[in-house]
């Protein structure tokens, strides 16, 4: 479903990220993202120990949890909302395991999510969740990294659903000064694997996309980009939905022009 939507977009994709429950009217940011040209939105379900996140998203997780945010409250906030773009949940595996993969995926689906990312769940441990997500109609996107060896990349390409999340650099989420050179190579390898398996699942490039230029550059090879910390940073610094949306819009333009 995400895959179909993405293909229908007919442009390089832009998936902004926000930590669910980060501020009082956090859903307004999602609307602004759509306004700015988002093709999908990644909503983080905050976890106490975000081991793959850098300082910005750690801070956002802590802030959201300090406000009393829970998986349930994020889902409730989104209830009945139709933003017109697919929502992709992202969280750590402990929160999935807490409810059990089946219940967790069913709850996501009921709240209107289309996809799921679990960064600390590598392919080898993902079997149970792949099954549960499939059963619930949730597309579980897998991550691939620049150090993933070829045969494994093929498996990831094959078993990922919705899209493949290309972790372009060796590091955690967060703002960076430049986009890693290895990322284009990873994306090329992934696309080759996907082509071999006969699917054309999009490859989204994430981690470290900070400026419009990064976004434009990264989306040359990839089918699109995921932008997280650069937006969250602005929210944490007090920028409202309009301002953050405005920034996202500059990325949208850069991607559209640069691509």
């Amino acid at each position, binding site marked *: 479903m995400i895959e179909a939507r993405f293909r229908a977009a007919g442009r390089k994709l832009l998936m902004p990220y926000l930590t669910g429950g980060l501020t009082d009217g956090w859903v307004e940011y999602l609307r602004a993202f759509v306004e700015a040209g988002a093709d999908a939105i990644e909503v983080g379900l905050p*976890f*106490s*120990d*975000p*081991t*793959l*996140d*850098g*300082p910005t998203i*750690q801070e956002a997780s*802590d802030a959201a*949890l300090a406000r009393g945010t*829970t*998986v*349930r409250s994020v889902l409730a906030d989104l209830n009945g909302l139709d933003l017109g773009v697919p929502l992709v949940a992202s969280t*750590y*595996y*402990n*929160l999935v*395991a*807490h*409810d059990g993969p089946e219940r967790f995926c069913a709850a996501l689906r009921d709240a209107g999510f289309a996809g799921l990312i679990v*960064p*600390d*769940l*590598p*392919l*080898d*441990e993902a079997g149970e969740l792949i099954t549960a997500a499939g059963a619930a109609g949730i597309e579980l996107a*897998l*991550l*691939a*990294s*620049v*150090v*993933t*060896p070829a045969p*494994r990349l093929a498996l*990831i390409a094959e078993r990922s659903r919705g899209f493949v999340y290309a*972790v372009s*650099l*060796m*590091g*955690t989420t967060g703002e960076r000064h430049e986009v890693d050179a290895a990322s284009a190579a990873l994306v090329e390898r992934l696309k080759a694997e996907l082509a071999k398996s006969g699917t054309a699942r999009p490859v989204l490039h994430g981690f470290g996309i900070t400026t419009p230029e990064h976004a434009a550059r990264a989306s040359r090879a990839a089918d699109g980009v995921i932008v997280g910390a650069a937006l969250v940073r602005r929210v944490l610094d007090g920028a409202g939905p309009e301002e953050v949306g405005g920034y996202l819009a500059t990325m949208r333009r850069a991607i559209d022009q640069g691509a």
Partner: protein
Amino acid sequence: MSSITEVLPRTRAGVMVDPGPRGRFGDHGGRYVPEPLVAACDEVAAAFAEAWADAGFRRSLANLLALHVGRPTPLTPAWRLSAELGIDLLLKREDLAHTGSHKINNVLGQALLATRMGRTRLIAETGAGMHGVATATAAALLGLEATVFMGERDMERQAPNVFRMRVLGAEVVPVRSGSRTLKDATSQAMRHWVGVVDEAYYCVGSVIGPHPYPYMVREFQRVIGDEARGQCAAELPTGVPDYVVACVGGGSNAAGTFAGFVGTPARLIGVEAAGGAGAASGRAGVLHGFRSSFLQDGDGQITEAHSIAAGLDYPGVGPEHAHLRDLGRARYVTVEDSEVVEAAVRLARTEGIVPALESAHAVAWVIRAAASGELPPGASVLLTLSGRGDKDISTLMELL
């Protein structure tokens, strides 16, 4: 041959062995790491398997442990405390190991492995600072660099260890997130590792983390249990103690000790901090790359552990302990901070040994269990004294 196998209770067959390529201890263990770390973990697993099968590697490690660390550590009969408690208490003296705790056994193993893998830097997390000091020590000894992540709160309460690491030439990185203790230091070390897998080796400090760490660290620590088993055989009329007791943070000193006795009739007791009892009070969960038993709230958020002993201030427990608990092969009990302080002082004043507050947890349980009759009079008890209390002296003095 077959008779020996028959003597072992059925449930123990295959306990504390190689957990297989997926690193599973029953329902626990595994490797829940982000994709960028999968290859790094694979590489460590392969290197360890190869090294551990190599007699030359084992010889080098045994040599370092003997020449540099002072192994074997003695088994000290706690005469006066035994008399007071009406039991026969034997202390396995890891407090006498170089750097002051059992952590060095594991670290030297991993540091040798890192050298073998061509890595030039060690990364480590530390709570009480003992693992950090051990890592800084091994790095100095083998000519490697060391970067140690430590919660800011732990840096305050274990300041001398911060100094020790720095004198040894290690970089100590304060971790300001979350509870600012071991849990967050571990998260930060893993985050850092992602970016430097090519040059740096992540030297995990307990039987936690993604496969192969829980298995590998237990193997490097089994020297405690193997030595103690031989020493008990010489010391005790029955050859085997009735009880084997160790404190459990992540659980490495306990795992190393239990490994020597899991095939005997000894009862295995892991003692946790009441405020950090991953095994005794946790629920199944996933953190820091492994599935095990963790303290968490109703929403599945990991809760902060609270212990007077920085090294036990961890909300989870190594996966093999969760498995031993599930099997009923080991029992996990808890003691309160106040009992721990009392036990530390009591051991100091009866045996002339100031234990680390971590180790004092094991002592506290023995004292309580002897008083309550849970430990029957005359019972023989092997207790692993995982470290010395120098680092905790100011904490103890404040509370005296």
